[in-house]
């Protein structure tokens, strides 16, 4: 109700709540001491491994750390175009 009213009057979300939500995300990274650069490296390495088995669209991949109740999860979203037949062989 309040939310709906706020929308009608074009009011923005209270800034305190915005602060809280931004903090939660930034702290997940701080606590895991994962910098954006490390995330880029991680993304690159995951892509390399996954590409051995699946045809994927690397540009559309994204990975992130997410708050999962009281633990942190690494969430990867990797669009797959097709399975490689039998996978490649790893030396």
């Amino acid at each position, binding site marked *: 109700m309040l939310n709906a009213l706020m929308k009608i009057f074009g009011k923005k979300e*209270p*800034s*305190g709540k915005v602060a809280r939500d931004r*903090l939660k995300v930034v702290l997940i990274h701080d606590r895991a001491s994962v910098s954006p650069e490390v995330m880029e490296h991680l993304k690159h390495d995951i892509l390399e491994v996954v590409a051995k088995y699946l045809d994927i669209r690397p540009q559309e991949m994204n990975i992130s750390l997410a708050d999962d109740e009281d633990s942190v999860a690494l969430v990867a979203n990797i669009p797959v175009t097709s399975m490689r037949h039998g996978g490649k062989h790893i030396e």
Partner: protein
Amino acid sequence: MSEIIVITSGKGGVGKTTTTANLGMGLAMRGKKVVLVDTDTGLRNLDLLLGLENRIMYDLIDVTQGRVPYKKALVRHKKQENLFLLPTSQVKDKTAVNPEELVKLCDELRQEFDFILIDCPAGIEQGFKTAIAAADCAIVVTMPEISAVRDADKIIGELGRADKENIKLVVNRIRPQMVEKGDMLDMDDINDILSIECIGQVPDDEMVVTSTNRGEPCITMEKSQAGQAYRNIVGRILGEKIPFMTFPKEGFFSRLKRVFNL
């Protein structure tokens, strides 16, 4: 049994020194023998907040480097005879004291004092590491503001890595009207995010500024809201169960005044 408490924050300017001065004064008013150790070498302020800036003869560095015994460097408060300050040097830098030296000094101070409060510098560098070395417990001061809470979280992590398990939170400079409007992180948000025990919620209060001007901590002022919040923290440190203050809602007229900028 004496207790060594370090007052720390990560982010600068959130109220560590103000908190140290007020809690020290408050504990002394409750009959405890208290010494405040300023470890913000090069940027000392605690002497000013206590109105003791003209009485300093020797400093922390003179003591840790063995030039004088600590008793010679202590400055007794003018009005509160249970309260002592061990000032630091305004000319040296943070490398002038190391953790071992401070631990050794605090062991000596334990013989004489009930409470040893250590005012920590901002940051997580050498000065911080020295300040926390001797502490039995830590009070982390923050403000209801995104960067201050983030830095508090970092400090809590650092304290954990240094095996300091007893950590309490003080949230300073709360503006109840902004919280009411949803324009400030509220206590539930902060408790939820930092998940350490909160022992103080101190409002933003002009009397902190005026009392700092006079060199008399606001805890001595009956009417100060921040002073009341600090008196409550002192009680909680002494083991009393005290509910958190509630702030009066802004009345219709004062809101009208504010809206019309009167």
